[in-house]
Structure formats: structure tokens, C-alpha cells
């Protein structure tokens, strides 16, 4: 909300400077967003004195002037009809920015004559509309003085944020009241009484609601003024509105805008001759015809919307916008001024449904002073009578306005309890009273009554805020929270710390951590969600359609990012993200997943390029992140059957037992790459961190004793031939099972298919490390173990020893 300083001073008697006013507004919670200070903005425009004005040799309408300026005598070519010797003018030097024409002046040659600067019109300085000639300052103005100061047009405009709890500050009066309470001056507002009515209003008002809906508009008042003459507003009113960015229209319209900004009191004026029968506030009906509102658009009243209607038609939306038909024009001679109270919630709903944005809606939906009907009408009527003349009726009133005040039992000790501030009781009373509250002090709980213009005040805490903000939050004591322990206990839960470690582990493995949107394109979601789409996860108002659904997996964002990076030439890429994957809209439908992606294109190197299969890099990385996150990676099962976005033959599952799938890994399905238009292959994994059992923190921190043998370990090699589709894991498991005590390690060092191995079979070569425990193994013992291994493997896999 904007207001010029001169408007504030109609309500506040103060000597405070602009800076003091702005600073105090901020201090009491009226956050100033911008100050437009003409003195600052137009400081480069100074008074000049035209010494000579000779006709231009080559142009009839131009004059070549000699001007005394702060920069010395300057020659300026000017086309204004009033440019003549002797006058004091608004001089702008070369290099000055002239806001009204959006030009920075440079030295010019006009029809062959050099010109150094400019003499400006009011419009060029945005000080008014006048462009018939240049500004003529008073004769006694001193050369070099600020034009703004000399013209007395220094009226800074302050723009501040009105928070939803302070509808009273939608009026300049509300701002003045806060500033007065903060000690910046005396509140000096006029109050208004309705002029003596000359006749009974021929225009009647009715409220047409049921018991259930009557709060939509509990009170509606109005006065009839006959014999008005509408026309342009007087200059002071036009100026006031222009300064806050409102376009003057006509006296009757400008007057309502003025009262609305002055006291946050919206009004509406009807051309009374266009009304048929009584006007009534009611809800919209199914048979209401659409009407044209003042914004020129047609609206169909809904059945929950408050409208104002007469016998013939709907005239407007109550509290939002009037209709074109009954609006005032130059020809209007009889008017009816409406001041009503409309329910904030219903007004807000109607506003949202119709999409109409208006100053009235803004004020009503935040809650206006319900007790302002009569005074609002009085202020408006006085202005109309003064500006447009006419005769006023007695007031018409339907319904009763809500009281709007609240009685609050207030122990003054609350201020100290909630804020730590020490405020004297007298000061508390002074502040509350200055803000419009009435206070009855007593030994314990005070009885405080809030004013009707403060619908935000509910209880004790609100009164504490009122006192604290006027005292100033800078006066709050600076206290520290008492420590809970001499040395603080850990503050991360196990799960939180695992997520932290998972991230660090992946970054340590060369992955760049990315953060991508939690939502994605619906077709992409289908690719990563087994083709299923969950209607509960579709956004009703996405920022764009390609961010329309919650992602079922963390991968789509990473895959798309890989495509973008590749397009920039970044082909050897490793990205990971830890974040939510969504399966339902309930709290348990959000899984924390650590997902990684590698576009594995290692750069060439003189020592050769490592030729690893990316599938096993993704498997290793998945195990790395699971291990960092506390999963028992040594005991996991490796299963086939990763989700459909994986390559069916080159992917797998890391699982605790057969059911608890902790991670998927492998190559991304080529069809997914094609659909997303990303080049492959990409190797990916997804680790479901929430599925790792949290386990219990160990009671003791001591590690088990080290079991080390002084005896030399020994190695034996075996090469088995197995059918090609036998998983290596089956063979390794059989070896482990053959000797549980002495086998310290198994290394699979060769996988071979081809010449020398039967068709449809493969050779798997392993090295088994035996660690003797108590005594050196004899040849017979070693041979026995070897035979057991061979027998177990044969039994489990049908393998034979490779000859």
C-alpha cells in the first residue's frame, strides 16, 4: 500500500523526518518496501535563470537561450512557447536523466545550433501533466536551488507491505495510529458526522438471506444525494490519487477511492436513476443473468456469491466490484452511496472463483472495521456535497453491523513471560490505549477491549505483540538457551546419519551430488513406475506439464540431467541424488532413495583404458552405498528381476533374504533411453535406504577379539565347467558351504567360454584361501577339503572339474 507523506500528515501531527518515519514504520512492523522521494530522484534538476532568448536562425518555433545555471552560463535551445528572458526555469545539465521522456541528456546540435542541457516541463519531471510549456519557478528562486524544493512539490511516497493481520493499515489512518503510538507525533484525524438529512431516501435497502447465510452481509447502509453534478475531481484529490498510482476518473468515483485509502473503508456509488425498486444484498441465484462488471467483463453470479441486485438485475458482487450498468457517469444527477459489511471468507471465495482483483475485495477479505458504515458514509457524503453539490437524505440502514470488539483478560505479566521484556504497566496501558484498545487495569488480570478495526486480535499473545512491537524488538534481551548436557548427545538419528554417510560415500566414489525436482513429466513417471500411474500423485496446478506428477523414482531427473550434460560434451559423468521417491500421498508412501547414474566413458590414457563392465560398477557402487548406510552387504542375496526400467539381462537386486529388496542395479533399459532421448548406455542403481533395518545401537563399543593365526595361509586353485546359465553365486555358495571353518577367502579370477569348453557351458576358475587355525594342515587334510569342495560344487551346480 502506498501513501504520500502529505496524506499521512492529515492524520499525524509530526515534525519527524522522512527517514524517521520510515525507520519507525519498519520498527513497529509496517515493512517499508520502497520510498519514492522526488527530492532524491530529481536532485539533479536545479533552478536556472533565462538571461536572453533569441529566435533560432533556422526555426521559427525554437529559441536560443542564454541561461544562468549552477554550472555557469549555458546556451540552450528550447521549443517551449513560454521560453523567454527573465524567467526562472528547471534546468537539467548534460548527463542528467529526464524521467518523463526516459532520456539521458547529451550535448546536442539542434538545427545547427549547439545546446547544452534542457529546460524542463512538469511532465518531463513527472511532477504533473503540464506539457504546454516549461516550468516557470517563482521569480525569487535562487539559481542552483533544487527545483523540487522551490516548487514545494517534495511529497515522498511510501510503499509498504500490509500483512494479512493488519487490515486497518489498508488505510492511511491506521499507519498514523501506529506511528503516534510509537511516539512519532499526535494523531490528528478528523472524525465525520453525517450531515443533517433533508428528506427520506427514496432508495430502499433490503437484506435477503436465510438464517444460515445472513452473515454474508449482516449490515448495509446508504444515503441518497440528489442533484449532484459529477465532473473531474478538484486538483488536490487528483494529485493525491495520482501519487499512489490511481487514475482519477470522476469526482464520484475518486471520492470512493479516496475514502478507501484514507480509512480502509470501501464504498460504492450507484447512479440512483438506473435502479429499479429496492436494492438488496442476497446470494446469487441459478436464474441470475450474467452482468457486466466495471472491469468490462461479464460474470455469472454463483449461488455462494453475495450480489447486490434490484428488481431488474444483478448490479454487482458485494464487496468486490460493481456493475457497469448502474455506475456513475458525467450525466449522473442522483446517487446512492453504499457502505456495507461483507463477510471476509465469502468475499475471498467469490474473489477467487471470479478472479476479480479489486481494492474493495482486498480490503473486505482481510476484514474491514464493521463499525465504519456510518462514518464512511459521512466522510463520503461530505466530500460529494462539497465537490458535486446536491441534497442529502436521511441514512438508510438494513441489518446490524457486528460489534467487532473483543474483551480479553490480560495478565500484564504475559509480556515478560513471552518476550523477556521489562515494560512498566503504565507504558503498557499507554501503548494499548494509543492503539485504540480500552484498558481496565486491576491488580491481577486486566480487562482489555480490542477496537473494532482490529479483527486480528484474539487473545493475550496478540496484546503482548502489540506492546512488544511498539516498545521495539531491538530492546529484547539476548538470552542463550541453557545447555542440556555438558557435552551434547548426538543429534542425528541412526537413519539420518546413514543418509549423511550414504551421500559422503557416493561423493567419495566420484559421484557429483545433484538435487533435481521431486516432480517429473507424467510419461517419464510411467517409464519408471512400471507403467502404473497413481492419480493421487498428480498435481492439480503444476508449474508446467513436464513437472506434473510426483516422481516414482529418483532416476528420471538424473537421466534427463545426463542428457543435458552430454549435450554440453560432458560424457563421462557420475551423478547421484538422495531424495524422495513417491508411491502414495501418505507419509509412508515417500521412500528415501539414494540413486546414482554413470555414463561410463572413461577418457583414454597412456596406461590403457580400464575395460570394466558398467553393470558391475553399478553393482559395486550400490553395495558401497548400502554398506555406508549400515546394510550387511556380506550377507545379501543377489537376485534377478529388477524393475522394468532396467535392462532385463543386465540388472539385478541386492536383497536381504528373498523379500527385502534393498537396492537395484544395472544398465538402464534402452527403451527408457530412447523415450527420454538420452544416449546410452547408462549404468544406474537405486538404494532404498529406509529398508535397511536400523538394528540396535550396541551397548558396548568394544570390538570382538582379533582372531589371527600365526600359521601360513595356503591357496588352492580349481577350475569348474558348469552349464552357462548357472549363476556363479551358486558355485561360490557351494564352496563356502563345503568348509566353513578354514576357508578364509574365495576369489573368482576367470570366467571363460569358448574353445576347450563344451558348447553351452562356461569355465569358472577360483582360488580358495585356507587359513589353518590350530596346526598346519597335512597334505591329506588339504586333499580331503579339496575333495569336499569339488563334491559340493558338483552337487549344487552339476559342475565338473575342467581337465
Amino acid at each position, binding site marked *: 500500500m502506498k501513501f504520500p507523506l502529505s496524506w499521512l500528515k492529515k492524520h499525524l501531527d509530526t515534525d519527524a523526518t522522512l527517514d524517521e518515519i520510515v525507520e519507525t514504520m519498519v520498527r513497529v*512492523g509496517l515493512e517499508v518496501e520502497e520510498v519514492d522521494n522526488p527530492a532524491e530522484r530529481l536532485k539533479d534538476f536545479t533552478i536556472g535563470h533565462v538571461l536572453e532568448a533569441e529566435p533560432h536562425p533556422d526555426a521559427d518555433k525554437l529559441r536560443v537561450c542564454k541561461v544562468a545555471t549552477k554550472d555557469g552560463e549555458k546556451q540552450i535551445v528550447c521549443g517551449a512557447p513560454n521560453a523567454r528572458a527573465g524567467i526562472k526555469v528547471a534546468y537539467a545539465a548534460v548527463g542528467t536523466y529526464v524521467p518523463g521522456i526516459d532520456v539521458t541528456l547529451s550535448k546536442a546540435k539542434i538545427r545547427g545550433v549547439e545546446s547544452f542541457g534542457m529546460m524542463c516541463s512538469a511532465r518531463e519531471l513527472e511532477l504533473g501533466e503540464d506539457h504546454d510549456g516549461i516550468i516557470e519557478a517563482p521569480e525569487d528562486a535562487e539559481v542552483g536551488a533544487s527545483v523540487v524544493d522551490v516548487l514545494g512539490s517534495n511529497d515522498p511516497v511510501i510503499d509498504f507491505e500490509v500483512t494479512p493481520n493488519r487490515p486497518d493499515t489498508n488505510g492511511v489512518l491506521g499507519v498514523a495510529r501506529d506511528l503516534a503510538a510509537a511516539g512519532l507525533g499526535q494523531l490528528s484525524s478528523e472524525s465525520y458526522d453525517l450531515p443533517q438529512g433533508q428528506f427520506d431516501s427514496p432508495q430502499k435497502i433490503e437484506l435477503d438471506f436465510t438464517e444460515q447465510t445472513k452473515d454474508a452481509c449482516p449490515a448495509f447502509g446508504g444515503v441518497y444525494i440528489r442533484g449532484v453534478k459529477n465532473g473531474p475531481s478538484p486538483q488536490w484529490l487528483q494529485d493525491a490519487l495520482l501519487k499512489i498510482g490511481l487514475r482519477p476518473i470522476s469526482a464520484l468515483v475518486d471520492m470512493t477511492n479516496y475514502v478507501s485509502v484514507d480509512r480502509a473503508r470501501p464504498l460504492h456509488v450507484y447512479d440512483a436513476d438506473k435502479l429499479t425498486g429496492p436494492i438488496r444484498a442476497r446470494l446469487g441465484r441459478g436464474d441470475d443473468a450474467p452482468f457486466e462488471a466495471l472491469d468490462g467483463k461479464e460474470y455469472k453470479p454463483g449461488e455462494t456469491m453475495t450480489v447486490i441486485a434490484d428488481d431488474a438485475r444483478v448490479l454487482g458482487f458485494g464487496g468486490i466490484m460493481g456493475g457497469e450498468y448502474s455506475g456513475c457517469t458525467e450525466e449522473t444527477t442522483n446517487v446512492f452511496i453504499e457502505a456495507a459489511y461483507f463477510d471476509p471468507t465469502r468475499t475471498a471465495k467469490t474473489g477467487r472463483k471470479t478472479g476479480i482483483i479489486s481494492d474493495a475485495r482486498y480490503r473486505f477479505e482481510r476484514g474491514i472495521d464493521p463499525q465504519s458504515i456510518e462514518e464512511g458514509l459521512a466522510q463520503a457524503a461530505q466530500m460529494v456535497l462539497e465537490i458535486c453539490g446536491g441534497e442529502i437524505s436521511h441514512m438508510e440502514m438494513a441489518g446490524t453491523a457486528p460489534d467487532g470488539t473483543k474483551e480479553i483478560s490480560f495478565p500484564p505479566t504475559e509480556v515478560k513471560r513471552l518476550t523477556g521484556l521489562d515494560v512498566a504497566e503504565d507504558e503498557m496501558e499507554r501503548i494499548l490505549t494509543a492503539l485504540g484498545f480500552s484498558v481496565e487495569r486491576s491488580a491481577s488480570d486486566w480487562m482489555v477491549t480490542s477496537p473494532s478495526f482490529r479483527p486480528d486480535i484474539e487473545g493475550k499473545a496478540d496484546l503482548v505483540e502489540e506492546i512488544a512491537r511498539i516498545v521495539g524488538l531491538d530492546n529484547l534481551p539476548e538470552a542463550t538457551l541453557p545447555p542440556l548436557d555438558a557435552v*551434547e548427545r548426538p543429534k*542425528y538419528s541412526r537413519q539420518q546419519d546413514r543418509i549423511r554417510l550414504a551421500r559422503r560415500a557416493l561423493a567419495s566414489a*566420484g559421484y557429483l551430488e545433484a538435487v533435481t525436482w521431486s516432480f517429473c513429466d507424467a510419461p517419464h513417471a510411467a517409464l519408471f513406475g512400471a507403467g502404473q500411474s497413481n492419480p493421487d500423485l498428480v498435481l492439480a496446478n503444476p508449474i508446467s506439464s513436464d513437472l506434473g506428477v510426483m516422481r516414482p523414482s529418483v532416476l528420471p531427473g538424473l537421466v534427463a540431467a545426463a542428457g*543435458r550434460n552430454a549435450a554440453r560434451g560432458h560424457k563421462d559423468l557420475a551423478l547421484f541424488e538422495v531424495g524422495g521417491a513417491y508411491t502414495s500421498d501418505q507419509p509412508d508412501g515417500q521412500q528415501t532413495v539414494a540413486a546414482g547414474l554413470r555414463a561410463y566413458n572413461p577418457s583414454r590414457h597412456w596406461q590403457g583404458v580400464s575395460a570394466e563392465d558398467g553393470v558391475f560398477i553399478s553393482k559395486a557402487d550400490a553395495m558401497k552405498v548400502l554398506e555406508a548406510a549400515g546394510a550387511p552387504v556380506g550377507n545379501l542375496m543377489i537376485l534377478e528381476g529388477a524393475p522394468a526400467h532396467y535392462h532385463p539381462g543386465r540388472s539385478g537386486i541386492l536383497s536381504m533374504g528373498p523379500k527385502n529388496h534393498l537396492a537395484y542395479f544395472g544398465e538402464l533399459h534402452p527403451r527408457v533411453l530412447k523415450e527420454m532421448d538420452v544416449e546410452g548406455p547408462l549404468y544406474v542403481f537405486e538404494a532404498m535406504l529406509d529398508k535397511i533395518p536400523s538394528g540396535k545401537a550396541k551397548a558396548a563399543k568394544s570390538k570382538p577379539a582379533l582372531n589371527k593365526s600365526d600359521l601360513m595361509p595356503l591357496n588352492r586353485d580349481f577350475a569348474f565347467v558348469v552349464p552357462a546359465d548357472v549363476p556363479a553365486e551358486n558355485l561360490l555358495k557351494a564352496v563356502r558351504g563345503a568348509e566353513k571353518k578354514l576357508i578364509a577367502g574365495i576369489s573368482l579370477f576367470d570366467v571363460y567360454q569358448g574353445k576347450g569348453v563344451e558348447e553351452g557351458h562356461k569355465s569358472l576358475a577360483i582360488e580358495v584361501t585356507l587359513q589353518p587355525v590350530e596346526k598346519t594342515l597335512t597334505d591329506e587334510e588339504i586333499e580331503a577339503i579339496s575333495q569336499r569342495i569339488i563334491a559340493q560344487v558338483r552337487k549344487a551346480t552339476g559342475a565338473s572339474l575342467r581337465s
Partner: protein
Amino acid sequence: MELDDLEKDLTDKISAASDEAALEELRVHALGKKGVISEKMKVLGKVSPEERKTLGPALNGLKTRIGDAIAARKIVLEDAALEARLATEKVDITLPVRPVQKGRIHPVTQVMEEIAAIFADMGFEIREGPDIEDDFHNFTALNFPPDHPAREMHDTFFFNEKEDNSRMVLRTHTSPVQIRTMMNEKPPLRVIIPGRTYRCDSDQTHTPMFHQVEGLVIDKSTHMGHLKGTLTEFVAAFFEVDSVKTRFRPHFFPFTEPSAEMDVGYERVGNEIRIGQGDDWMEILGSGMVHPNVLRNCGLDPDEYQGFAFGMGVDRLAMLKYGIPDLRDFFAADARWLEHYGFDPLDQPNTATGLSR
């Protein structure tokens, strides 16, 4: 003397031996079973006792000296052979090593951990909650009445309406986790709540997803002075400066009363923003005493319990501290950006070693 000549002959040959094979040949020649010295020893039994008294020690001495000379020569030859081998093994040490891909931690993660480290020192635990929320937790319990204009301050992402007319939202702030915490746990509470938040807004300085950290303290004595002290300490610790100028301004949030925004002083030096001192003010967080209605909505008696809450934008704090120019880049997953603005995984923020290097 025959022996002297022999010794001279042998030592000359030892000195002249050019490799270990020649030296071994010499050793056999001199000290082998049939070597010249061994042969002389054999005659020792045949000489007279007197002669033996002089010849014996002379021969033994000769044997020892020749043995030592051979050993010494052997070391010399071994050293020479090693030197020669080393000379052939020289590599061009300027050849480049195999490049290692360096991983990075995203600035949002790093800054969240920095914030957590500071608040952990002040006794705050971490709580988290779901991104998809219901109206109750995101608004109503936080004292946003239905249809209140305060709801419009949040550009909310909605899900489609369900059969019962309810509709879920993407949380517009981390504050719903305050509600979940207060409803599930007993005071005293001292928690921070980091997480993703969402608003339907996208331009140069807004992204539809961003990050917040919320703080909540509930007990029987914490007042607004504690809020001021805690946040002032936090800001100094976070920006790693000795002290910061702060300013508390009254503001409005539905879920706190009294409410305040905190500004920090800053100055611009070239392109750099220095937080802490200076004549300009920058708003960095919202805060206040938890509204009595919020406490009541969570089953706490506002006459018994009290405390403060605050919330701040993590992305913005990261931009301010580390001079990151554009918010939108945070979510673009551009490898160049991540490599440049990301953090080494070894940089694990804590207050013992300092938050950052």
C-alpha cells in the same frame, strides 16, 4: 716369500674381477677345496713343528684376508650391478597419472549439515516429515483458518481433489513437521527440521522446489529473548564471523505471536556480499513465539508451555555464504556447476574443526 707373492697375485685379481661370476671363479681358485690356499693348507701337516708355528698362522691369515677381500669386492660389484639396473629403470615421471573422478557434495546438503552442526551444539535434534501433506498439518493446525488470505501468501501446489473433497498439498514450508513433532512427543522439545518445500512460483529468484530449515523450542520458560540470542549466535556461527549486526522487526506469521523477521547487516565489497557488518539490511529468516492456537491444536496448554519457532531458506543461505549467483542452477544438475560449487566429501562440517575450510 712365496706366500707374499701369492697374496699379491690373488688380491690383484680380486680387484680386477669385473663381475660376480669372475669373482666366484677366483674364490674357487683361491679358497675352493682344491684352491691354491687350500692346497697349501694340506702341506701344513707335513712340515716340521717349528715351521708349522710360523706357516700355520701365516696361511690362516692369508685365507681370512683373501676371504674378506672377496666379500668386500662382492659388495662393490653388487652395488655397481644395482646402479646399472636402476639406470635402465628410469621413467619419465612427468607422465600424467590416471585421472580420478572427484565427487562433490551439493551446496544444499553441505549447508544443511553446517546448520545442523551449529544447532546440535545448542541442543537441537533433527526431525523430518513427508513432502506431501494434508491441509491440517500444512495450514489448519498452524492457525491458517480455511479461506484466510494468509493462505494465499503461499502459492500452494495442490493435488487433485479426492472423493471426500479433501486435497493433499505439497508442503509449502517445513512447519507441518512442528505439528507432527508436538503431537507425537512430549516437551521439552528442541528440534530443527530440514527439508524440501514447494511453492507454485518460478522466476529468476524463485524455484518451485526449495529447501528450508525450521526450528522449534517448546518448554516452560523459553521466551523471545532466547529466540533473539539463539538466532544471533547462529548467524555469527554460520557465516563464521566474530559478530553480526542483527535487527528484529515485527512481522506476521499465522503460527507465531508475537512474530518477527530477522535482518542482518551486510556490505557489498565489489561483487562480494559480506554478512555481519555494514549499513544495509537483509532479511534472512522469519520467527516468533509459537501461537497459542498452534499449541492448543497440538494438545499443549499455552498457559503452561511456550517456546519459539523459526524458519529459513537453505538455498538462499548457501548463496549468501558461498557467493552462488543463481538459485535456478541449484536444481539443474549441471556437472560444471556441481564441480565448481560442490564440496569435497572430506569436508564434514562440525564445530570442532570449523564449518568450512
